[in-house]
């Protein structure tokens, strides 16, 4: 698998994680294995992932698995002020940003508290469906 395919598939998995609430997703395909984890709770294997034998692990789960918040629409990211920063703690659910689609604001919530471990987007960035916006350690 080439790097761009890995990147594309990783993004797809991140989207699926954010949407479907899987705790862990692992896809093995020929020589490549991609694994993403969200939380250490129920370790469910991804359904529908093709069974094959791994020979190399391309992407390892990060030390502290994070919950990905992804865009549900295609549009432009607007970060709410004050914008959250990496490392920042959230006490509970908070609206972090919205994605503007044809003039409509689609709110992006943190869906609970935690620590912002990554901000993947900047103000005004175009995003597609399923694109990760924030990673939050729970």
């Amino acid at each position, binding site marked *: 698998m080439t790097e761009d*395919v890995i990147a594309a598939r990783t993004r797809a998995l991140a989207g*699926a994680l954010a949407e479907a609430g899987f705790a862990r997703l692992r896809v093995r395909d020929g020589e490549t294995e991609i694994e993403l984890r969200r939380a250490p709770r129920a370790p469910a294997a991804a359904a529908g992932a093709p069974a094959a034998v791994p020979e190399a692990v391309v992407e390892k789960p990060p030390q502290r698995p994070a919950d990905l918040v992804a865009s549900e*629409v*295609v*549009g*432009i990211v607007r970060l709410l002020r004050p914008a959250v920063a990496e490392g920042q703690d959230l006490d509970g659910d908070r609206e972090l940003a919205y994605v503007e689609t*044809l003039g409509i604001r689609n709110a992006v919530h943190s869906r609970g508290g935690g620590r912002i471990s990554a901000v993947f987007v900047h103000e005004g960035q175009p995003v597609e*469906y*399923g694109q990760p916006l924030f990673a939050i350690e729970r």
Partner: protein
Amino acid sequence: MFKKVLIANRGEIALRINRACHELGVATVAIFSDADRASLHVRHADEAFCVGPGPVMRSYLNIPNIISAALISGCDAIHPGYGFLAENARFAEIAADHGLTFIGPKPAVINAMGDKATAKRLMREAGVPTTPGSDIVANVDEARTVCAKIGYPVLLKATAGGGGKGMRSVTAPEELPTAFATAQAEAEASFKDGRMYVEKLITNPRHVEVQVLADEHGEVVHLGERDCSVQKPSHQKLIEEAPAPALDPAVRDRLHDVATTATRAVGYTNAGTLEFLVAGDDVYFMEMNTRIQVEHPVTELIYGVDLVKEQIRIAAGEHLGFTQDDLHPHGHSIEVRVNAEDPNNNFAPAAGTLTTVVFPGGPGIRVDTHVYGGAVVPPFYDSMLAKIIAVGRTRESAILRMERALSETRIEGVKTTVDFCSEVLGEPEFRAGGIGVGWLPAFLSRRAAAV
């Protein structure tokens, strides 16, 4: 000419449009669902946006996300392909509201032709022969009155219909209530529009359609006719050819004349297809498709015209670069649809991974496909994997070429229509030319009985 076109479709037609754009020097933006991430239509575009998950309502029919993708990426036009939003006048209007050129006819014309009953009325007014029948019937009682007048057998049709959905044949009055109820329910489920009308049922007609092109400056040409009479029991086309074989030259001329007259009468622009039923010397207008058709390549191969490029040029306001006198067909062309479905089980669609994919090549063979070895066929979309198109100097040479092309085709992982189509091509009645739309269902019955 446009700078950048968003292709609001998937699969082979998205690739087809991508090719036309790139050959015109126009940049492209693909859209895709999560399930199509690895499709060739995504790989070959200059940019690509995921617009939603697999189910079509959330992705390929997701108008806000699609329009947003076009705006974000700086497109100036949208090509809708066929299916999905191709005949959705509202989508065309929204695109226009956002400054995007919709590559197709004007919304009012899409609307008029999309409503089958309105379309028939407009065509009758333009002097185009249509099947005897009704405007919209409000209920089964109105339908009964109409049926009694025009005589059984009749066809109940949804005014929003297409692809055989919301359609039922009725051979006797006692069948009417059930047929009406099921057809209407199907239409409501499929199109959110349960309005029905009635037509005289022409027994085993041929399906012959005429391709037209009309620019925005009043030039209208036809590019001959296609015969699409090889249809599954679901009325879906399986094998198409151009020109129509064994067609009386006077009937052919009449079809061409009627098509261009009608195109002018309704103020049509861009590429369109007028579908007719042909029974002996009689010709009846059925409907007009306000988009590019799946089977457009058979016309391209004998006329040497790139219909999708012409669509784009017309939408960009260009003049047609030719007149009717410049258009001369050469040879004969035939298309086979390679679908992921099981011909031995009512063409049940199949999804899965294509473990082996080898397409044919060589002289006179064109392949339009979005799949490749290792590609996954998702369960959400139509089952067409590829179109194989053959051209030869004569109908017989085109069929021989198609037979060898199908023998070279090897697709493993899902059941396909390849071998079945080979079988059809070998049938003496098909070979003779001129079969009606009832032929394939009858052939299937004979075939099932023989097992």
